[in-house]
């Protein structure tokens, strides 16, 4: 286990230049996530049309892992159907549990090393918790 496993250049790149950062006025889902133990915060917004994520945007503050994970996630789910997004979410969770994943995870693969830093896994998962909530809002807009 070394720091190079954790702080890949790609992660730091997303941390420095987060993609899809900002607010999405036309969004139809909006969730706020906060990790009360460390104070990391993420606001995630999705614009979904015909069961497809047309755009995703996030804003927030926190450590490199939480913010890079959110940035990569918005890229990974843009253009995907709600079902595909859920499948990516499940694969990402598997990856964080140290399990092998068949899908090409793209930039997200750079977060694989986080699985070996147990206290940081929840940082990586914060945005995905937001995705889970957002997808539930779409599937069940009344929240029932």
């Amino acid at each position, binding site marked *: 286990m070394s720091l190079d496993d954790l*702080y890949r250049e790609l992660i730091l790149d997303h941390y420095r230049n987060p993609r899809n950062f900002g607010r999405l006025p036309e969004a139809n889902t909006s969730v706020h996530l906060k990790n009360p133990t460390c104070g990391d915060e993420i606001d995630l917004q999705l614009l979904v049309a015909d069961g497809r994520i047309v755009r995703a945007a996030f804003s927030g503050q926190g450590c490199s892992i939480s913010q890079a994970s959110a940035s990569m996630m918005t890229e990974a789910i843009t253009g995907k159907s709600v079902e595909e997004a859920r499948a990516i979410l499940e694969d990402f969770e598997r990856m964080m549990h140290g399990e092998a994943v068949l899908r090409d995870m793209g930039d997200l693969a750079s977060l694989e090393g986080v699985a070996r830093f147990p206290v940081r896994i929840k940082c990586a998962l914060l945005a995905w918790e937001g995705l889970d909530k957002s997808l539930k809002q779409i599937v069940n807009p009344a929240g029932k």
Partner: protein
Amino acid sequence: MLDVEGIRNDFPILARQVHGKPLVYLDSAATSQKPRQVLETLREYYEEYNSNVHRGIHALAEKATERYEAARERVARFIGAAGPQNIIFTRNTTEAINLVAYAWARPRLHEGDEILLTPMEHHSNLIPWQLVARSTGARLRYVQLTPDGRIDWTSFLALLGPKTRLVAVTHVSNVLGTINPVREMVAAAHRVGALVLVDGAQSVPHMPVDVRELDCDFLAFSGHKMLAPTGIGVLYGKEEVLEEMEPFLGGGEMIGEVTLESATWRELPWKFEAGTPNIAGAIALAAACDYLDALGREEVYRHGLELAEYALRRLQEIDGVTLYGPGPGVARGALVAFTMKGIHPHDISTILDQDGIAIRAGHHCAQPLHRWLNVPATARASFYIYNTCGDIDSLVQSLYRAREYFEYVLR
């Protein structure tokens, strides 16, 4: 001067390695490490006279009771209390403060009453009062802080008035390191008829604290931050105040005579100790008091101050580091909170951990203070009797390494 090398030999955990590097423990404000002398009392109790207190009529129970009550007297002496009747054993500082919130404040406070707090309180000296305010209608008022994180005296005096029933204040801030002028605050509060609760979690382990000199009405602190195990804490209260209070928890141990309908309470301090207490913890806390007194409380304070001053100086040398709380040359607690431009405190902590260095990162259970500081989180290095300037050199070296890692981000 403390014999730090000798002290370090008393702490078995300091010999261990973390990620293949010698442990550099800079998180004593969260919990301190424990010396053999304290650990030995735990072993001795459980192996030689484990028994319940105050009820058995046999040799072991007698010894356990004697040692438990001797521990109470030892703790009373440690903080200058009049006697054991002032010392209530709790689980920790939080429980001690909650005891006062439930048993003193709730039955007495009403709409129109005020509790005076500071924005630098740990959540444990904040949430209990928010709950009291919610249930009684009392109002919470907050003293202003100076830009370097000290209590603004003018604001304190302005807020103090006939409506003030209680001032609840930390003696030493667990983030800023500020030492608050508790004695002066108590005197001012008493002039308007308010009581004062002092959160001593970060002061009692690190400096001489004398409750009769402070004249505070309550003092709460934890054993685990002062070399003792977790699960043992203390509430000191003035006798006349404790006497007026109803019990906090009901159960065995705290009763006089019980009928099906009612009961009478035992005298102080047992009125507040329902159920089997943390017997071993209390006895170990007494051993921790012995250990600290043998070193000299003034010496312990000086050592912590020296380390904090050295850390302030060394950290200032690093580009992009911001320090919080009073600057060098001001009396302070044995800790330093800081941030580094472009590197979140969690990332700092992870990188330091790989070098065997344990610090704390986050909001340190003081979210309102971090809002005041206008940062979501800070990194905190805290020191105790077993730390050296070499530990701080390791910290600084590792922080430079963190910068190297984040060079890309900082460019």
